[in-house]
């Protein structure tokens, strides 16, 4: 048996792959989460506000990451929970952690597609030029930054009903993006909103992206620590949610 085959037969990988297929075969997920950030970036970052392509690449790519993570987990988990699919999986010998890992890896892949596509838009139409290290860092930072938002989505998906989850996610997704300065740069927001932004996790992920691309070198350690803190909080909420779900 070749290595590839043995990987393939591994139940963990099977589940990772099934979660990927799950998302790919759901155009109502894959198209909006991929296309919306690219469309927004084209409108705002390239056409309407010229000269700020790099800055807005960082923030709109963060926005894309936010969407892929929240929708993959929040909506997906809530509906699978409602269909009893999660319960069934739990009863089966299937490793649950592989299901979650599968979803996370899929969300990261989708995030990576968004980020790379948006980077190419920025390079071709926004004249953005970065050293190769900065391009790679941008992609890696944002792909890794998917994690806290995956956990946030997971917590929402576990706590809320399948009808409420999409609504709540939409309610979080758009305002969180705006208030974190992902659409309009934070320095251009009113003072009160600027203060609010520093409390929101996407602001810090965008801060890291701005830092590694050199658009705005900043306190990267602070951004990183805040994101880690949020990852712990969201992880804790998701763990509580898991208990809530399994206790049902």
């Amino acid at each position: 048996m070749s290595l590839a085959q043995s990987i393939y037969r591994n139940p963990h990988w099977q589940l990772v792959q099934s979660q990927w297929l799950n998302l790919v075969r759901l155009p109502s997920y894959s198209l909006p989460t991929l296309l919306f950030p690219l469309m927004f970036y084209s409108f705002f970052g390239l056409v309407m506000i010229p000269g700020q392509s790099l800055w807005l690449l960082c923030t709109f790519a963060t926005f894309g990451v936010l969407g892929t993570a929240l929708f993959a987990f929040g909506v997906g988990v809530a509906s699978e929970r409602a269909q009893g699919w999660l319960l069934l999986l739990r009863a089966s010998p299937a490793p649950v952690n592989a299901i979650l890992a599968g979803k996370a890896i899929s969300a990261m892949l989708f995030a990576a597609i968004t980020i790379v596509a948006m980077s190419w838009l920025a390079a071709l139409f926004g004249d953005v030029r970065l050293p190769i290290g900065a391009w790679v860092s941008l992609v890696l930072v944002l792909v890794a930054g998917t994690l806290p938002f995956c956990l946030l989505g997971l917590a929402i998906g576990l706590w809320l009903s399948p009808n409420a989850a999409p609504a709540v996610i939409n309610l979080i997704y758009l305002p969180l993006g705006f208030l974190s300065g992902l659409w309009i740069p934070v320095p251009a927001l009113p003072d009160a909103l600027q203060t609010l932004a520093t409390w929101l996790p996407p602001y810090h992920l965008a801060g890291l992206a701005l830092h590694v691309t050199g658009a705005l070198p900043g306190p990267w350690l602070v951004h990183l620590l805040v994101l880690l803190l949020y990852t712990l909080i969201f992880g804790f909420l998701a763990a509580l949610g898991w208990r809530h779900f399994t206790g049902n």
Partner: protein
Amino acid sequence: MKHLILIFVLIATLAILTLLLPTPGASSESPPVVSHFAIDNVRVFDGHQVIENATVIVQDGQVRSVGDNETLSAGVERIDGSGKTLLPGLIDGHAHSFGDSRIDAARFGVTSLLDMFTAPEQLLPARQQRTSLDRSTQADLFSAGILATAPGGHGTQYGLDVPTLDQPDETADWVAERIAEGSDYIKIVVEPLGGRLPTLNAEIVAALVEAAHAHGVLALAHASTLEDATMALNAGVDGLVHIFQDQPVPEAFIAQALESGLFVVPTTVVLGSMLGAVDGSTWLEHDHLGPRLSPVQRQSLTQPGWATSLGQQRWPLVLANIQALHQAGVPIIAGSDAPNPGTGHGISVHHELQLLVEAGLTPIEALMAATSVPAQRFSLEGRGCIKPGCRADLLLVSGNPIADIEATGAIERVWKNGQEIELAYIAPPTEAIGRDEHDLLAPDERQYWQAASDQFMGGKSTASMENRESGVLVQGQLLTGSFSPYSGAMWMAGSGAMEAVDLADRQHLSVRIKGDGGPFQLMIFSGASPGAMPVMLDLVQDDAEYGLDVELADLALLEPGHFRAFGIFATGQPRDVEFEIVEARLE
């Protein structure tokens, strides 16, 4: 299995696409940059030392090699540098960027500006621009943005919205705001002006320094006395952006400066000009450089300083303190403080180099003060150097500035990002004035008048205007609150506010007003930059009338090709203002 393979293929594709993203200098979309040339047989100052008879090869915006002659493919331009010296594009360690400052600086071989206070809106675009190696005709900008000062303190008088500091616990947020606006470092003002101005106390200065360092940026201080400079040094600042000149620098200060690694940007040229010891206006007569000065440069160079007797005493201390610090090993950085009185962007860096040599630096040390020293202290990678990989910001001068520092002014060619830039000042073209009425109080011209006061500049004076058959009546109040209060009315030459037009054949302006309690001034606004200072002339009293007839050609600083507006204003002491403009003719 198919999907597993697809996932890996997808990951590999994304990785490859990421690695193929365009990098600076290797643009795939915009047409290839034609910047490939060699300068042969040239004396090179590489930021640290001199290399005689070298060949410098520039390619794609960067210096590719410095060394012996090399065979290059046909078609690569070869420039003969015999008898000439190639310098790194100079760095102005203290400037204020407004309007066309960065273009003016670059035309004089100053390709990076370390701004010490300006409007923050330009910072983020400038940040993106300076990372590029694309063609540019401007000096790159690094900036403190808004300065740190006390409410009502130095820096609040220029009409910019300056958030001030009152308490040490405000400093962390204040610094974070500057960083978010794009400030590269923090400038802190310690300027009590002999007790006449509110200023930051030691506690706030120390907190600011700490906050700046927490963000990993430099903290710099404006101080003009030993006492204030010592306070800043104790607070831990990285640099002083002026040299103090109230007393000789004591040994203890030097020892502490050396220990803390302090650098000093003495701004000799602006201090000399303020103290009346240095005359920037002589540059207007310079054979080579005078004709290249823009109207804005000429304007600021000819603005007078104080020229007090105190100044004459203090000027030797300026030079002596620079020498003492320099000899002890405190790093000195060349800075002009342009466009303050007696200085002009770009040109005054050359003036500063001469003054630093006068203060006791060798020409090489002076050149280092405008290249490698600021590059190192401000972490300006690839600037202030001529080495492989350095940004191709280059200044070619005839003669040898190592022997005679004045030769830096013998500018022959300047390259920014490896592309040659035009050295002459070129005024942007304007439309000719479209109206042919010479009587500016005629009914058709009345719409071009408007009331104006110093509120525009942050002052408190008021003005209102009423059209009467006999003329334009102005009423208002002149109140203190800005540097130079004014209240009156303006006539606009173009159809847009302050739009520049070419006056073409008009040569003569005459105005007459009825009113009492002068002084009144005629201010004429012209120039390629809307921010250029107006020409100011006092109206002459004749009984109850004040008036003036001026030949426009007699006004050296007026640009009839870019005429924007003129205004008639009550100026001087606070008072109620009422006058009627009864004659205004432009013929």
